[in-house]
């Protein structure tokens, strides 16, 4: 377990540095990237493009391996069904992302700026996650009762 926690911390460090280096952490940049009909700033396309290079290679390697280095097996989702919760969730997320310019990773990283806007956004994001937890546990309880 210690090894896996150290891997998590190291991967988080790379991720956090990457968010700041790429300027993905900056809501003004994200909104300029999303503003395709205005003064469009395409630079964040390079963030996604750059990120897909190592991750695609890693997924190709993982298919050749029976298990990861520090874990008994790969825990990669096998569900391939495009269902209503997936699309509805993506719509709600896209709406929130477009309103503020922060998605979960950059939101957490932005806390280190100490800005109240970052703290307020993350608090609301956690409240939204908690609301989902309440709703989904009620739904599964209702499903079991039937």
């Amino acid at each position, binding site marked *: 377990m210690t090894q896996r926690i150290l*891997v998590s911390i190291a991967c988080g460090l790379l991720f956090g540095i990457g968010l700041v280096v790429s300027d993905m952490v900056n809501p003004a940049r994200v909104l300029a990237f999303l*503003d395709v009909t205005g003064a469009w700033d395409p630079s964040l396309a390079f963030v996604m493009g*750059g990120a897909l290079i190592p991750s695609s290679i890693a997924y190709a390697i993982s298919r050749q391996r029976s298990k990861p280095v520090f874990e008994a097996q*790969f825990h990669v989702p096998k569900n391939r069904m*495009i269902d209503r919760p997936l699309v509805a969730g993506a719509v*709600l997320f896209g709406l929130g992302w477009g309103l503020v310019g922060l998605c979960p990773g950059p939101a957490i990283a932005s806390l280190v700026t100490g800005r109240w806007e970052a703290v307020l956004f993350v608090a609301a994001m956690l409240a939204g996650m908690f609301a*989902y937890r309440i709703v989904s546990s009620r739904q599964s309880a209702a499903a079991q009762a039937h």
Partner: protein
Amino acid sequence: MSDLSFVWPLSGGLLIGLSAALYLLLNGRIAGISGLAASAIGWTGGGINPLGLGFLAGILGGAAVAFAYMEQAAFTITASPVLLVLGGLLVGFGTRLGSGCTSGHGVCGLARLSPRSLAATATFMIVAAVTVYITRHVMGAA
């Protein structure tokens, strides 16, 4: 956009992708921040996940170092308090309902050619762009 303005986004993207690559090959899991954040506080079932906590701590540490040493590091946010709360609620609820965000669906899901992640990424990108179009160009409030 100057001629070399792609260098920083590309470098940052490579670091994010390297993080996702190592997390998969070493820990065997998807580096999706919305799921890791929920699991870190025990909201995915199975109690508090130390891997989620470790990843979040790493993000904070990495961002703190980068903000301290990068002169051009910036954080410009203009949303009002009402929009911050509304946006945060939507991002939190939506990413849990939709099983992922920009990292889990965008970076990891597209890399493994998951049809769910492709659908989710296309959906949240289009909705976010339309939202910006409406708030900036229709309502005129930037």
